[in-house]
């Protein structure tokens, strides 16, 4: 490669590296703003502000959903399997909302560290499978539980 082109290529590469570092540092500095939600551990550790509109996200804890029979009020716990936070919500939940599924709720933490949500969105995971496969997985998981075996997580 002739020297002039080599010099130009070096300049282009330096330009690219410089921009990459600048963008990297900027996004690193703003990481808490770029993060869409606080997870339950951050809330438990007091990182999330109280009485400020924020989002909280995680998995809906198994067996934690309590619906009020007379209204649309619902209460459930959101967990990241190390901490959990109680969420109160009044309104229609998305179709995909279920125990064991991911959710992202918008609302405020009150003084009792309960999350009062004004909007609940379902978070879908990267698993796609036909219903038969999902049923077969559930059957084998049930069998494994009976026999006291550990099932691999899918």
């Amino acid at each position: 490669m002739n020297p002039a082109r080599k010099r130009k290529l070096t300049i282009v590469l330096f330009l690219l590296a410089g921009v990459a570092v600048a963008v990297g540092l900027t996004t690193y500095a703003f990481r808490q703003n770029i993060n869409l939600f606080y997870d339950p551990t951050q809330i438990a550790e007091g990182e999330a502000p109280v009485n400020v509109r924020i989002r909280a996200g995680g998995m809906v804890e198994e067996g934690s959903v309590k619906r009020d029979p007379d209204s649309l009020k619902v209460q459930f716990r959101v967990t990241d399997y190390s901490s959990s936070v109680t969420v109160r919500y009044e309104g229609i939940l998305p179709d995909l909302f279920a125990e064991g599924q991911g959710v992202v709720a918008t609302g405020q933490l009150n003084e009792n560290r309960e999350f009062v949500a004004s909007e609940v969105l379902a978070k879908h995971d990267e698993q796609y499978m036909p219903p038969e496969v999902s049923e077969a997985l559930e059957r084998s998981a049930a069998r494994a539980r009976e026999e006291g075996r550990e099932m691999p997580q899918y």
Partner: protein
Amino acid sequence: MWQFFHKLGSPKWFYGIAGRFMPWLLGFGLLLALAGIVWGLAFAPRDYLQGNSYRIIFIHVPTAFLAQSVYMMMAVAGVITLVWKMKLADVFVRAAAPVGAILTVLALFTGAVWGKPTWGTWWIWDARLTSMLILLFLYLGIIGLAHAYSDEKTAARAVAVLAVVGVVNIPIIKYSVEWWNTLHQPATFKLTEKPTMVPEMWVPLLLAVLGTYLLFGWAALYRMQTEVLRRERRTRWVKELIAAGGGSQLKSRGA
């Protein structure tokens, strides 16, 4: 290899070789993309959780994938423009940018349509969706910049710099779902791992992605041919081509 690189310097040679590739790209592209989309939309099994609404991935994934791929190709072409001053690289960037912009719009639109029933919202400012929107603005910026200068060389350099600098956004799009908390789910397909989907779902998706690649190749070559003709409009071979009634395939010996 180097000979090929040097031959690309000849617009007439490029015009001829592009014309020979285009029918194949269009034919196989349509075949694969239609097979993948029809199979995916009509015959693939439905999802255990989302039912039929997941089927939008057979359009969403190929367009989103290509939108990022096309940008990376444009960045490589931008480096070639800046370092080797190859005119055809600039022709490619100009030809590919509107196609990439349309693919990005399609990816954003299909994602929103899927997001409403699945997440409960059309749009959310999470890192994946926002970085994809930035990609659209980069494409629009490149299109605008390409038409902002009357001098072709200045325009080529400005467009190349923007294309190269903007490529920083591509890893951000790709890894946004891992670096930050987002509503968008992480990638189902990883290059290093076996797909977690059943073959009845990922085979049609793969066909659709390959088909979209080929169709992009066709669209890019077609637009590049047009741009080459515009730039070479005063040369003898273009005048002869027009006198002979046009056609994307050169019939003369030199092609």
